């Protein structure tokens, strides 16, 4: 086991995920706090249909245009006065969090890291949108507590 998530909580408008990282022999290596801005709870990915086409807010497929060049690209665009249809859940997903923890574990294995290092989480300076969105993140990711890899 490389790491275990021990806590998921809110601190100054940020989602905080605390993880214990372990040595290959199973002993504790270090404890780390990972944070995401609460505003991420308000960011939703644009919705697509089963064919991967971007959708407008009335459920219709967004118009596309060819961007000419040495590599022609098909680009969806937003007609005037319209909005994109958004997915209901935040863009941030479990693997956004797990991937970051996984990546830090690998990076510190490669570069070396002191045993037992731990630090106290300091106070962030959140924007109003961080306070507005962080509860959504906590509701979505609190079930990660106890997750191991």
């Amino acid at each position, binding site marked *: 086991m490389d790491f275990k998530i021990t806590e998921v909580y809110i601190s100054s*408008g*940020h989602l905080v995920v605390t993880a214990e990282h372990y040595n290959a022999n199973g002993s504790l290596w*270090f404890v*780390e*706090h*990972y*944070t*995401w*801005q609460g505003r*991420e709870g308000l*960011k939703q*990915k*644009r919705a*697509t249909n089963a064919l*991967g086409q*971007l959708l407008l807010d009335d459920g219709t497929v967004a118009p596309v245009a060819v961007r000419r*060049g*040495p*590599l022609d690209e098909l*680009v*969806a*665009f*937003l007609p005037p006065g319209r909005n994109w249809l958004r997915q209901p859940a935040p*863009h*941030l*997903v479990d*693997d*956004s969090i797990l*991937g*970051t923890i996984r*990546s*830090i574990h690998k*990076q510190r294995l490669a570069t070396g890291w002191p045993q037992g*290092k*731990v*630090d*106290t*989480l*300091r*106070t*962030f*300076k*959140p*924007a109003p*949108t*961080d306070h507005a969105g962080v509860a959504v993140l906590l509701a979505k990711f609190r079930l990660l507590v106890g997750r191991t890899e």
Partner: protein
Amino acid sequence: MTVSTFFPDASPETTSVDGRVERSPTPAESWASIRDGVGNGAGDADTRTLIRIAKAGAGSYDTLARYIALFDTSSLPDNDTIDAVTFEGVVIDKSDTLTPAGQIALVTSTPASNTALVTGDYAQLGTVDQAADVTIASITADSATYNVWTLNATGRGNISNTGITKFGLRQIADADNVEPTGTSGDNYIRLANADEDLAGDKRPKLVVTHTSTFTPRVIVF
């Protein structure tokens, strides 16, 4: 230590934009003209961006494209030390047919607005490496794997804990102003943007490891 992750905003942006700025002339033109000319294309709502040099013939170029990414890092605690930073991005596809082989440089950027890109921003990318260059050959282009630029001391020094951190990607030949040789070719990576439409979450991100500065206090009885 604390590890904090930041993303650019998808469109419509509120604090921090990402997207493309480019010059794609018709007809194709010289290296000096395409590198130092004014931009004629920009986009901040695309799902992906090309970072690219396309050479149509000897001494003749038809596309030079750069990427700008801003991150609102103003929430970082005051006085924290920035210990390590990575810029990470997912690449959809790539080409590496120019000589010399392509590398992608992380540089600073200074777009006119923090929330929109315009053609004039084409000239608003720096030339100083903020991280070790990454060869196109080493980049994983599978629409899933994050490719990592590890920031150097200069790059770490450009992380703002009071405002917007502004970076960008450009081809190293573009940053260093070294014209590719050969008669034709195409060096590019196609990077997922904040508006990406891949499976899961494949947005570009800035991962900042920071430490609180210990402030000793003396209690006198």
